[in-house]
């Protein structure tokens, strides 16, 4: 009998956003995406009150999350009450900015990759207030969020087919849109 093989980080390489999907995201109008993401984020905060508590003194910061493989940045503005998410083609002004492949940013939320490991490998960069970025990373990691399930839930009576579409997109692209099988 041989010992169980060690898992490697390389087994979970970060996928590039498929060109078709990247093209579609580039053309998509910002307003509906901003509406959907803002609604989702408010719903998440309502369910995960510990997230803001864990952010502590950074609970009113503006965070920019910039995709390096798609010309797209998201601004999570916690200074507004209730919070607002805006979508930009260029990185917006923010207290802290985290940049990486879109799949890496989504995978961090779902606990697929380790933030420090992505930083060591230069797959992730942090600019601005490092403390704020660290607090956000740790708060989100603790919240064990599932963005796929949250988006599916927003579709109300269509949540089951929406979940199946998200799951299919995950299988086809390798991008971890859900927290490992949580909505399958």
């Amino acid at each position, binding site marked *: 009998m041989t010992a169980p093989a060690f898992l490697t980080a390389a087994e979970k390489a970060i996928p590039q956003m498929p060109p078709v999907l990247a093209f579609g995201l580039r053309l998509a109008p910002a307003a509906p995406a901003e509406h959907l993401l803002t609604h989702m984020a408010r719903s998440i905060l309502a369910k995960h009150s510990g997230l803001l508590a864990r952010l502590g003194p950074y609970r009113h910061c503006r965070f920019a999350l910039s995709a390096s493989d798609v010309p797209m940045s998201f601004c999570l503005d916690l200074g507004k009450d209730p919070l607002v998410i805006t979508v930009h083609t260029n990185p917006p002004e923010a207290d802290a900015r985290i940049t990486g492949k879109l799949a890496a940013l989504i995978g961090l939320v779902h606990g697929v*990759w380790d933030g420090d490991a992505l930083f060591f490998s230069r797959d992730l960069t942090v600019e601005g207030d490092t403390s704020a970025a660290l607090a956000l990373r740790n708060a989100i*990691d*603790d919240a064990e969020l599932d963005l796929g399930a949250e988006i599916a839930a927003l579709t109300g009576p269509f949540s089951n087919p929406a979940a199946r579409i998200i799951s299919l997109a995950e299988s086809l692209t390798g991008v971890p849109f859900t927290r490992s099988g949580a909505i399958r």
Partner: protein
Amino acid sequence: MMELVCPAGTPASLRAAVDAGAHSVYCGFADDTNARNFPGLNFSRAELAAGVAYAKARGSKVLVAINTFPEAGNEALWHRAVADAETAGAHAVILADLGLIAYAAEKHPGLRRHLSVQAAAANPDIINFYAETFDVKRVVLPRVLSVQEIAAINREIDTETEVFVFGGLCVMAEGRCSLSSFITGRSPNMNGVCSPASHVTYTEEGQELAAKLGGYTIHRASKGTPAPYPTLCKGCFKVGSRTGYVFEDPASLDASELLPALAKAGVTALKIEGRQRSRAYVAQVVRNFRAAVEALEEGRPVPAGMLAQLTEGQSATAGAYNKIWR
């Protein structure tokens, strides 16, 4: 089987560690009392109690690190932490300060005491002193000893020993290092922060990523090369005409290949560093080391060296365990 002592910076990481096979999980409160006092990390009292319940229900233990040195006049914060750890049902507290150990022994005699690596106890005389005077049950050995030296210490003590086997590697005498204080005024020993994030900035300068600590550039990573933690001990400096790592290369500890030797040296527990890391790191490292200690217990070969991508500098070392300079 050697006990696997695993890190948790958040309740989610604690659950990940337990689920991945941790025998014990260590964590701390969200204040100056523990040596990983980073933004967004650590436990409230209620979270600790819930974490202890989760671990106990699955046969794991929770150890609470209260391993900084109390500030004179503000000892109450550390005293309260010890009391609250006991109330939450912690299996043990991990302490470094002599006064706090004396306090815990006197006021909380039923609470098991471990000696933190921050106490830098590296010889049988001091370990026996802690055991005889304060009934310390376990000592976490500093990362400056070879396997042979650990074996020699174990022959002269009755206290359990715990050694680091994976993760960030302090190259200084732990609990005594003043490099972070020198630049930022804040230290792991008194404030629980080495290179506090509030003093760290990263900027892209041309093709290089410049890491600054307290306004001083301490490292430049050119495109495509790994980035280290922004600690002074892993900084890259110009000395005369040479540029290099003055204190130590940015590499992490990986002693997985030495597990058989550490078992033979009489080590009781194996510690994984990384309370500042994510639940993804915790789950992956714990799962792999649990497989390794089970393999060792059953006389099978120990798999090793497959976690390099999780390590600082993306390279690993056996550190002082394989000391070759003596």
